[in-house]
């Protein structure tokens, strides 16, 4: 049985989730002198102990394959043993369901900092036209804000977290406040030459990595292991860059292992408390608040609203529009690998660099006619990566044999591969949404989400274009494609795979069409705000984290101002 215990203090703001959105709101409000309680469903993060930065594969008996060689049987840890996340595609005791005929994968990381501890750190501003898709081509919905509204917050976000890049003047990739990006690696030099020849812009990458000391954080030391977590915090993670510094202000009460269950409302329909499960004792607790900020991730925040049912809001809190859960999207994904003979026999050198490419290709056909409505950007891979389990599986399969000839084939192959990954815009459609599954609860008794997902021709045709582009790039640089998806239907990523899920609690100008106003404040319940990717109206071909930080910053400032005026 759950025991109801009520804690006495009333917090000005309770923030649910400590990822990019929650971390940003925590830092901004703490700096404004507002006391906040931060609920995190996972445990505390201890970077020195938890991050596997600089660890060699031979320092673990299984070399990174997992206990019992799990990765050999397709049961390995997502992104490999050394990745900094604390979660995965499935969490024990915390299921989600997928409707028949749909495919969906949902990545969750339960720890202070959430997915920002391990994410790819690509930080791309949305373009002016990205926020006004309907006005531009009649498809989708315009955002209630324009580029001018969000640009000052991009400036703040980039200045504070640190982002590499260069001023390019490309409309699809607005310039920002950039730190110097390190020079391209050898394979990236070749890719750029191929791109130049094909008329595709290939520019210094925009990564949330600092290349000069910033706010007490040292510059990158170029070990290439951002995904393992960075102990000195030379890349952005909300845990190290926002939550820990915010805690030093004395304004933050961090409550870990707290799985939010429901928002409690009073007779006036205002939220007065958050009910959560203390995972350590599996008891229900409540924390009182004047305002609440949902930043539990796009889908978890949706789940929380839909599970907060009561008199007058039987379909979930803040859901008078009936659209909570609708307009969910992920980015499209398609990858192609190649072997580049020009790189074979090159003098070995340290190509680690930042944990990610040093160049990328922004969408370049935004003003040209294509047979699909929306674009994509291209991410690059390659270089002499640290060998790991499976690094040479391709050579083994291709060369076969054994002995010195196999060893030579491996030596010759090392560092000669490049990869191209496209990330494209998905147009929201009525067959893609999430709702509460009435039949399933998680181990805490909380009803779980059920996902519905469909790609449409707009995405399939876009992915066909990616395949053609990548093939052209590879052939132009004299390479050979070595990895090709066998079936056309398998080319496109599964929904959720790219981990860019956005939407589901949209912002908008019309309360009948959108649950949130243009400040990400609930239309129905004025003391509820959403600060993750759920308020996004669409996701263009851009990785969402930078925009989560920028919008959360804007929401936090608005919330603080409304509190000062006594409006919430």
């Amino acid at each position, binding site marked *: 049985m759950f025991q109801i215990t009520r804690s006495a203090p009333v917090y000005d703001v309770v923030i649910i989730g400590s990822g990019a959105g929650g971390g940003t709101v925590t830092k901004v409000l703490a700096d404004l002198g507002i006391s906040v309680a931060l609920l995190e469903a996972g445990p505390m993060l201890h970077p020195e102990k938890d991050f596997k930065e600089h660890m060699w594969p031979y*320092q673990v008996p299984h070399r990174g394959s997992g206990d019992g060689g799990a990765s050999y049987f397709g049961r390995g840890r997502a992104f490999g043993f050394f990745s900094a996340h604390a979660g995965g595609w499935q969490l024990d005791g915390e299921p989600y369901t997928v409707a028949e005929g749909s495919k969906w994968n949902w990545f969750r990381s339960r720890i202070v900092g959430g997915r920002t501890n391990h994410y790819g750190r690509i930080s791309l501003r949305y373009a002016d036209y990205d926020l006004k898709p309907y006005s531009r081509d009649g498809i989708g919905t315009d955002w209630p804000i324009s580029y001018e509204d969000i640009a000052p917050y991009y400036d703040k976000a980039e200045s504070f977290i640190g982002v590499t890049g260069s001023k390019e003047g490309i409309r699809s990739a607005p310039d920002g406040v950039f730190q110097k990006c390190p020079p391209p690696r050898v394979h990236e030099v070749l890719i750029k030459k191929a791109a130049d020849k094909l008329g595709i812009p290939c520019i210094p990458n925009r990564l949330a990595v600092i290349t000069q000391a910033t706010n007490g954080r040292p510059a990158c030391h170029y070990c290439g292991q951002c995904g393992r977590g960075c102990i000195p915090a030379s890349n952005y993670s909300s845990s190290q860059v926002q939550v820990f510094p915010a805690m030093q202000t004395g304004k933050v009460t961090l409550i870990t292992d707290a799985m939010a269950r429901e928002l409690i409302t009073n007779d006036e329909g205002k939220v007065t408390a958050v009910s959560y499960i203390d995972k350590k004792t599996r008891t229900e607790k409540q924390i009182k608040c004047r305002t609440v900020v949902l930043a539990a991730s796009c889908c978890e925040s949706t789940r929380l609203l839909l599970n907060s049912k009561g008199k007058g809001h039987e379909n979930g809190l803040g859901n008078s529009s009936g659209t909570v859960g609708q307009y969910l999207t992920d980015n499209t994904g398609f990858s192609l690998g190649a072997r580049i003979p020009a790189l074979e026999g090159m003098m070995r*050198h340290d190509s680690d660099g930042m944990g990610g490419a040093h160049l990328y290709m922004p969408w370049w056909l935004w003003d040209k006619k294509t047979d699909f409505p929306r674009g994509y950007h291209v991410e690059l891979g390659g270089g002499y990566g640290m060998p790991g389990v499976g*690094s040479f599986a391709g050579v*083994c399969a291709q060369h076969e044999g*054994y002995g010195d000839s196999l060893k030579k084939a491996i030596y010759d192959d090392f560092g000669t591969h490049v990869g191209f990954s496209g990330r494209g815009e998905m147009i929201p459609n009525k067959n893609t949404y999430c709702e509460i599954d009435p039949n399933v609860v998680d181990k805490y008794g909380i009803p779980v989400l059920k996902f519905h997902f469909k790609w449409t021709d707009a995405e399939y045709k876009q992915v066909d274009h990616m395949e053609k582009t990548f093939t052209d790039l590879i052939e132009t640089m004299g390479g050979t494609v070595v990895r090709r998806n066998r079936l056309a239907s398998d080319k496109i990523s599964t929904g959720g795979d790219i981990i860019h899920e956005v939407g589901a609690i949209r912002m908008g100008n019309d309360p009948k069409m959108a649950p949130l106003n243009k400040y990400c404040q609930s239309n129905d319940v004025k003391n509820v705000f959403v600060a993750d990717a759920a308020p996004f109206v669409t996701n263009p071909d851009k990785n969402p984290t930078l925009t989560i930080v920028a919008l959360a910053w804007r929401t936090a400032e608005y919330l603080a101002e409304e509190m000062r005026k006594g409006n919430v």
Partner: protein
Amino acid sequence: MTRRDILSRIAAAAMAGPVGLEAAQHVHEEAAAATPAGGVYKPKGLTQHEFDTLRTLSEIIVPGASKGSAAEFIDLLASQNTDMLTIYTGGIAWLDEAMKRQYHSDFLGAKTEQRTEMLDKIAYRKNRTAELAPGITFFNWARRMTVDAYYTSAAGIKEVGYIGNRGMKEFKVPQEAIDYAVKRSPFA
């Protein structure tokens, strides 16, 4: 010195400024010293005969594989996972049977040229017949995992020429390497 100590040092060094080459070198050496020491290994999952066979086989697949503790790596995983154990106990039994049928000796007892003759069959997909299929499947596993073990060891990482996992004050790309690749590319 434990890994945690090493990491603390990196963190401390990094907080003080960019990681120096000295610190990086130190990390490198500490990490290298952390490889398993020698001595007589007692198999955890395989029998002594199976283990000895696997060690000999892995050394043929990748000369030097024992420096990467390939057989020990596979034995450890097999001791933790019955699917893995079955692949190796079954595969080694198949190999011994096939050798006995052809040469009247198990794999370990056979002459070098007899072993080579057998491996030259099962090391290639093109030789797949109903009779050889289990051997080819097993050899695939042994090759893949021996390669993994060796090239994730200090010896294999050095041999393949990976130079990294160290602190760098500034990221630079050798001009010589760029020139080499461009000259060999269609952009020459």
